[in-house]
């Protein structure tokens, strides 16, 4: 199976897991075990639109209980002899192999998945940012031997790209180092936020320069946070910003209290 596989380097390993639970798109080649006409095929594919029930296949790494997944789009791209090419846009955790198999059952002829290519995982798509292993190797070689980093800069995307699908909060410079030390975000530290921030769900914290500071769990809805003057707004889960990059205002304040 080929296609979009986002890889987090070094520190970004911490956040790359959050793209696992985002929308997926696949191009799949199905082989039917007998020829089926186009009109019957199109009708059969309609059955997969919307909510479907799936039991994970025998060889899978999750618990094998029936689960519900949504298929947002299923499009017949091509049809030749016993081969069917489809594009599927679906929830994470939908098994393509199962869809191919189930299509065979619906048609009554049997079918299996021949090839699969992932064309989207949340924010990552099959576009000019998609690179092959060979390109990475070439970019590293150029950088290491001649110090030229243009290709490497095209190959590596900033970590921020991998969490654009999450709700966001932009915080004050003075709050950054406290968060980097693991503190929770308090209301006065908030500069602005997106309106899709939901209570008890994931949120990404950014500096005013657009750097990712940490992933956190929002405790209130966006509108509520906007009205708050004090109190904790989000609980910090995963810190990406190293300590000491931004000044530790909170420590200094403590010291000055000690002096007086």
């Amino acid at each position, binding site marked *: 199976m*080929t296609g979009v596989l986002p*890889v987090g380097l*070094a520190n970004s390993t911490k956040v790359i897991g959050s793209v696992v639970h985002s929308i997926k798109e696949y191009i799949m080649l199905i082989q039917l075990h007998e020829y089926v006409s186009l009109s019957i095929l199109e009708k059969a594919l309609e059955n997969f639109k919307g909510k479907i029930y799936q039991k994970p296949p025998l060889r899978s790494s999750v618990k094998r209980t029936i689960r519900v997944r949504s298929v947002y789009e299923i499009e017949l791209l091509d049809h030749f002899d016993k081969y069917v090419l489809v594009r599927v846009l679906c929830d994470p955790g939908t098994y393509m192999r199962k869809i191919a198999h189930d299509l065979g059952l619906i048609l009554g002829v049997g079918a299996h998945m021949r090839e699969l290519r992932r064309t989207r*995982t949340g924010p990552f798509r099959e576009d000019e940012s998609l*690179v092959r*292993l060979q390109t990475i190797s070439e970019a590293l070689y150029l950088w290491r031997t001649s110090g030229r980093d243009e290709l*490497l800069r095209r190959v590596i995307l900033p970590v921020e*790209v991998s969490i654009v699908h999450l709700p966001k909060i932009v915080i004050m*410079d003075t709050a950054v180092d406290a968060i980097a030390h693991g503190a929770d975000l308090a209301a006065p530290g908030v500069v602005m936020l997106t309106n899709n921030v939901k209570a008890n769900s994931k949120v990404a914290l950014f500096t005013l320069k657009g750097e990712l500071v940490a992933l956190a769990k929002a405790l209130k809805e966006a509108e509520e946070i906007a009205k708050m003057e004090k109190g904790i707004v989000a609980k910090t889960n995963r810190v*990406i910003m190293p300590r000491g990059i931004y000044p530790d205002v909170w420590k200094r304040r403590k010291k000055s209290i000690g002096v007086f």
Partner: protein
Amino acid sequence: MGLIEKGLEFLDKITEKAGYKNTWIKIREADTSPDYGTLPYARRIEDLIQFGVINLDKPPGPTSHEVVAWVKKMFNISKAGHGGTLEPPFRGVGISQGDWCSSCWIS
């Protein structure tokens, strides 16, 4: 353009490129100092590696896990991780080859 405008433009740009949208609620005025931190796209190359992701086109054959191990080795970094496994194709190939071999033995 100031640092804040550049920072926010960056966030909006990468969000829109990925097919999502930010609708901001502004709460208070603030400023950011150029003395610390940096715009994400202006990071030093060493920092970019530490805070970078690769949109990798996985080749067929190896597992996602193997591919990540290779990338880790290429960059000579201690950690790397991937988002969402893409299982390798045709797990049956090895088995069918086994069948072929054994039939050779019989004949």
